[in-house]
């Protein structure tokens, strides 16, 4: 545990990807299995469980310290783990500390009732920075500025392999990655993942630029709606079932994880299957599809007979609901039946990496699309819809199309993809473009400010702003981003000079400063007194020049509500 804590400490204060990579590589080289594998999992965000909940930590500390002082300390420090690390009142050092592996193991096996006491024991044997490391590790929130991709790159460099090899293996191997590390060190064969249902790194797009629009040629590009849902990958292989299962189990001592037949991944490879059983239950075959997850209201399994074919095809236009509707399905570990009925999910499929067991990634988009379309025609898969393609003959008509598409609030712009693009993981240049709708903007008045967290922990950087309803301002949202460091300093200074009241950590300020707030959409909301909620609000400009009474009204904002 000491080595891991030291590593985190150094990573935290070291700037620069290269220097961080050196520190991690050094750690991997000098730390035995399985400790190093657990550290890799912690850094890459692939630990499968929380050792303890954040709430357990909070409860524990409030049992042992004054809650008011804890609250004030937390407000200042801006982070629970560090606050607890400093405030934990007991200390009896143990040397050496238990290994990382034994700590992971302890929390994996300890009974629920004993989690809190176990954590307390560990905290007591550690220094504040070791406590901090344990708390970050245990709640899976390291935030050391190293992405999962960099970890894969570091591993690739360590074993002198291509990163693509690591990416393909990544979701089929499990912490503490002993197999993988042994292979990288040349001490074992490459892990076998032939039949595993695993995440395939996705292909991403670049924002389009004027130049790309000007040189648009209708013969080279495919145009689609950019839907306002979340990008997912559906991986299914039900054709294996029963066949080799028994022998495979014996050979690789496979876990439940490796035996699964279907999974839904987010575009970063997080497994989100558990939230969407309604979708997965109806899937079968051997395929990997790339698509947009949305709430779609005509997802019922078709009971139509052949004679209904004509009417079915017209009915198979998806009836897409707003992002707000999808939001209610996200991060639900176990969705309830009524929720799945009121907000059923479906997939608008725009690409296939594997179809009927055949790998398609080296084919062109045009060829993949053809196969996908005929597969749809043949299978009529439930809950899946083929994405529409749109037409534009010239740069001008592309611009016009963008304008019309953007009037439709269930899409958020256009996707423009080269017809001859093969499916390349990552963000290859010049292949796929996204062209988002221009953001909506509102002039709002800053009402409250709060100190930020993390790097902004001393600055007033979280702002609540409001719109006018008659003579009164009603809060419509909060924003934390969109300004430069220079502006942040100026705003912090402004808040300190113009504070008029205080509610705990929140400062009320004079209603004098106007922000131009950009946002992606506005939804009705009963959580806020104003009755509206903004999606992804960020500060677009600070209007030092604009008088507060010229800011927008709530009525003006409500006109922008979807549907």
């Amino acid at each position: 545990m000491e080595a891991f804590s030291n590593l985190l400490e150094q990573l935290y204060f070291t700037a620069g990807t290269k220097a961080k990579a050196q520190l991690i590589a050094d750690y991997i080289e000098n730390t035995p299995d399985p400790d190093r594998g657990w550290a890799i999992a912690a850094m890459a965000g692939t630990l499968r469980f929380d050792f303890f909940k954040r709430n357990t930590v909070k409860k524990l500390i409030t049992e042992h310290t004054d809650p008011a002082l804890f609250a004030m300390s937390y407000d200042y420090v801006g982070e629970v783990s560090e606050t607890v690390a400093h405030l934990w009142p007991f200390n009896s050092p143990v040397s050496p500390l238990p290994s990382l592996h034994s700590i992971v193991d302890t929390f994996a096996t300890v009974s629920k009732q004993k989690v809190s006491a176990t954590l307390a024991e560990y905290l007591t044997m550690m220094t504040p920075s070791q406590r901090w490391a344990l708390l970050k590790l245990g709640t899976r929130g390291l935030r050391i500025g190293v992405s999962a991709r960099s970890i894969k790159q570091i591993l690739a460099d360590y074993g002198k392999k291509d990163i693509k090899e690591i990416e393909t293996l990544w979701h089929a191997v499990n912490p503490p990655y002993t197999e993988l590390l042994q292979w990288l060190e040349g001490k074992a064969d490459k892990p076998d993942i032939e039949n595993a249902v695993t995440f395939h790194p996705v292909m991403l797009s670049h924002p389009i630029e004027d130049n790309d629009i000007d040189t648009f040629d209708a013969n080279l590009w495919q145009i689609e709606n950019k839907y306002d849902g979340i990008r997912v990958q559906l991986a299914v292989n039900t054709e294996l079932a029963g066949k080799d299962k028994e022998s495979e189990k014996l050979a690789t001592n496979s876990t439940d994880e490796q035996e699964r037949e279907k999974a839904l991944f987010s575009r970063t490879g997080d497994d989100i299957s558990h939230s969407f059983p309604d979708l997965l239950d109806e899937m079968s075959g051997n395929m990997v599809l790339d698509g947009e997850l949305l709430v779609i209201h005509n997802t019922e399994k078709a009971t139509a007979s052949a004679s209904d074919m004509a009417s079915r095809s017209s009915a198979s236009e998806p009836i897409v609901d707003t992002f707000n509707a999808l939001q209610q399905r996200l991060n639900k570990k176990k969705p309830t039946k009524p929720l799945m009925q009121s907000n059923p999910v479906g997939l608008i499929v725009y690409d296939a990496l594997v179809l009927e067991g055949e790998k398609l990634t080296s084919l062109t988009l045009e060829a993949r699309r053809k196969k996908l379309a005929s597969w749809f025609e043949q299978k009529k898969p439930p809950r899946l819809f083929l994405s529409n393609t749109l037409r534009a003959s010239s740069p001008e008509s592309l611009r016009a199309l963008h304008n019309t598409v953007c009037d439709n609030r269930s899409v958020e712009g256009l996707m423009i993809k080269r017809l001859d693009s093969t499916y390349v993981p990552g963000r290859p240049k010049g292949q796929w473009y996204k062209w988002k709708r221009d953001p909506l903007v509102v002039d709002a008045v800053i009402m409250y400010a709060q100190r930020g967290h993390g790097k902004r922990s001393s600055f007033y950087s979280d702002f609540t702003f409001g719109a006018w309803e008659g003579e009164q301002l009603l809060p419509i949202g909060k924003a934390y981003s969109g300004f430069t460091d220079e502006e942040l300093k100026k705003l912090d200074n402004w808040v300190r000079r113009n504070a008029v009241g205080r509610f705990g950590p929140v400062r009320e300020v004079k209603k004098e400063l106007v922000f131009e707030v950009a946002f992606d959409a506005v939804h009705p909301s009963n959580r806020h007194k104003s009755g509206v909620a903004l999606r992804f609000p960020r500060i677009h400009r600070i209007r030092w020049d604009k008088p507060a009474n010229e800011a927008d009204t709530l009525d003006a904002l409500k006109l922008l509500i979807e549907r």
Partner: protein
Amino acid sequence: MHPSTWLKTDNTGLYCEPGGFYIDPMTEVDTALVTHGHADHARAGHHTVYASVETLAIMQTRYGEDMAEKQHTVSLGEKLTFNDVTVTFYPAGHILGSTQILLEYGGYKVVVSGDYKRRHDPTCPPFQIVPCDVLITEATFGLPVFEHPPIENEIEKLLHSLRVFPTRCHLVGAYALGKCQRLIIALREAGYHKPIYLHGAQLKLCDLYQQFDIDLGELIPVSQVDDKKELAGEIVIAPPSALADRWSRSLPNVRTVMASGWMQIRARAKQRNAELPLIISDHCDWPELLRTIEEVNPKEVWVTHGREDALMYQAEKMGFKARALSLVGYDEEEQGGD
């Protein structure tokens, strides 16, 4: 008469009405009593200034000989009278020449502690417990998360880093008055006797300390080093603002070190881009603040600049009457002696 009737705060600072003077005023006033030389307490341009001999010297060094028309040297323990108010300066243990000020009027004793600490500091006499009815205390580190480690630990971190990175220039950000000299002395006490290199902004005040017979060992201005490559593996001390400045680019393979009480909070250290944060403070940490309140044992505690909420809460829990005294101008971010 209760002090709340004759001690007032306004935009300039803390004003003693019957005495006709301000303590540590932010803007130019007729009569100012100054507790210590940090810029957020000692300003230029007052008509008459009362302060310790060291504080006056610091102010002259920073603002010139004519920083005030009349300059009165006050000795520790000497009784002064302003109308019916009796004033006595006592040591505060914060930096060279730092004092706390006792005010006696209308049957009440009030101590204005200024900035102070309770740890050993060879540059000034230790903080003295002065019994009083009202203790006005700072609360710079007034939260239980602040427990400053012994300075020896922090110095060892720096020396360890010098051993691990023998070719890197260790550029230490430390405030020019107080922090810089304390750091140098602690390095000397830990057996580090090589020359220490200084940014131009640190020079005059280090000279001043040496004039007051405080031995800092061999100090060399960075500007006198022709080949900056020679600074590899050496310690250079600069004001925090110079760390990320163009000035530091000429130094070889810099490792950024920052010495301040704020370094205890990771995010703060990170804001400063410190690769090696050293927790060195010239203020009280939380246990010392509480200990001071207990030992002074006043009837009331008034809390000024810093994290006053927590200290007030805790003082009340300990059975003292507490209130916040909001004073302007003590800049939370850049204050002198943190």
